[in-house]
């Protein structure tokens, strides 16, 4: 049933294109379900490792215990891990001979259906009227990043990013006199650590940072979120950035903020940094904070819409 006039009927749209969209539609819903209810294993491993570093009977261990319990329960019950099912961010590569518009409409329709099924909360509000149409579909929601490629399959990734952690993201324009950060790697490091200190427990830490050095303001933030598509245990191919990532995570964990800001050793589980070119006149450091409920998933999907393998 299609109750929203804004969302065209998938089958009708598909009829005129080469995409077997009913299959793809089911696949989108499954990607959403899995993303919302199960954390990827690389993230679970980091949470488990963090839990072990907290002292026995401490508040940090207590919070991490509740977090791991929650991860298990959500999976078993197939219920959202966190009730804030977040901004819906899709990153899609698709075979270039397919119709991008159909793929987009299929994704939107799947979001509306996944909301009806309860995998997503009714979480998208008209910024002017405050109205919620209950579908999660509207201007900017879901956010769809589509790129054609020469391969014959889809690569569809989804990130659900909650409001609490999005609110503590930060963008610095260097030089920054408040924190004494200049236009160099040391300055970037100061920005990253300052952002963690400012966030305290408000982003539902322990968190993970996606950071972009350079770019303009918009591409900087965009690219910082894409860093969060990297696996927790990967190594940055650029040795200078790899070093920066490790140093920032280690230093942040000395701040003593701990899980939920209760105090403790696990403040940050990882830092992922990339660099874009910039104008000589600008030097931005854009930081996206991801909460422990780090919901991202993805799949390799054949052109007919069948899931071939999960990516995380």
């Amino acid at each position, binding site marked *: 049933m299609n109750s929203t006039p804004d969302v065209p009927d998938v089958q009708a749209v598909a009829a005129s294109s080469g995409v077997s969209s009913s299959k793809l539609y089911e696949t989108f819903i499954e990607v959403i379900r899995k993303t919302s209810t199960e954390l990827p294993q690389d993230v679970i491993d980091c949470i488990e490792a963090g839990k072990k570093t907290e002292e026995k009977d401490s508040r940090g261990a207590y919070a991490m215990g509740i977090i791991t319990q929650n991860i298990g329960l959500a999976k078993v019950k197939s219920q959202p891990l966190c009730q804030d099912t977040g901004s819906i961010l899709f990153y899609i590569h698709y075979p270039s001979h397919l119709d991008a518009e159909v793929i987009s409409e299929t994704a939107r329709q799947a979001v509306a259906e996944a909301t009806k099924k309860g995998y997503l909360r009714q979480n998208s509000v008209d910024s002017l009227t405050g109205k919620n149409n209950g579908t999660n579909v509207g201007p900017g929601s879901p956010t769809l990043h589509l790129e054609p490629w020469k391969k014959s399959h889809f690569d569809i990734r989804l990130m659900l990013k909650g409001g609490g952690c999005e609110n503590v993201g930060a963008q610095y324009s260097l030089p920054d006199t408040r924190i004494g950060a200049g236009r160099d790697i040391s300055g970037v490091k100061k920005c990253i650590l300052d952002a963690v200190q400012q966030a305290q427990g408000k982003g539902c830490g322990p968190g993970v940072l996606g950071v972009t050095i350079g770019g303009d303001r918009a591409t900087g933030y965009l690219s910082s979120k894409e860093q969060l598509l990297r696996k927790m245990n990967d190594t940055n191919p650029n040795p200078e950035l790899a070093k920066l990532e490790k140093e920032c995570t280690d230093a942040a964990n*000395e701040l003593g903020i701990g899980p939920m800001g209760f105090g403790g050793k696990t403040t940050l589980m990882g830092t992922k940094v990339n660099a874009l070119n910039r104008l000589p006149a600008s030097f931005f450091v854009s930081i996206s904070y991801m*909460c422990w409920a780090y919901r991202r998933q993805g799949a390799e999907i054949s052109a007919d819409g069948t899931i071939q393998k999960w990516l995380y």
Partner: protein
Amino acid sequence: MIQLQAPFTEDKIRALKTGDMVEITGVVFTGRDAVHKWIHDGNEPPVSLKDGIIYHCGPVVVKQEGKWVVTAAGPTTSIREEPYQAGIIEKYGLRAVIGKGGMGEKTRLACAKFGCVYLHAVGGAAQVLAEAIKEVETVYGLEQFGSPEAIWQLRVEKFPVVVTIDAHGRSLHKEIEASSSEKLAEIFSTIKK
């Protein structure tokens, strides 16, 4: 682990200290933005909040076989209620506020003066916290405020929280903010130009 059981008397609340890990058993009322503003605007709450606990939460509640069941119940950010909370603590004798992210100076001072605490639940733990809710006793203002904003009267058992603002003027948020800020300054001084 400290067990905090109803009735939530002033003595029991004053005995809690910042940093204590607590499990609550008894009745809590949900209340978020709409309800706080509405009470602040001079409307009488539909329930007695005397010696009561308010939970900053917009739960997901569904009807199963004629009964309300909570399927997700994590805390929402508390600081949005900062303009209203102190007044409600004073006027209605609230004993505890559950939420996430901590609250500000006005609330900290009201907690000390009137014998109230701020209890931090684990953000995002929607499923664990829903499991601790054993029964939806009733709901107020469902039509007026809508489901997430309504006042849900919930019976909870061993609902896990940490005391982050106590009734003696201490705030864990303030303390950790200060200590982490000091540590940050120390780290900054070692970062080479």
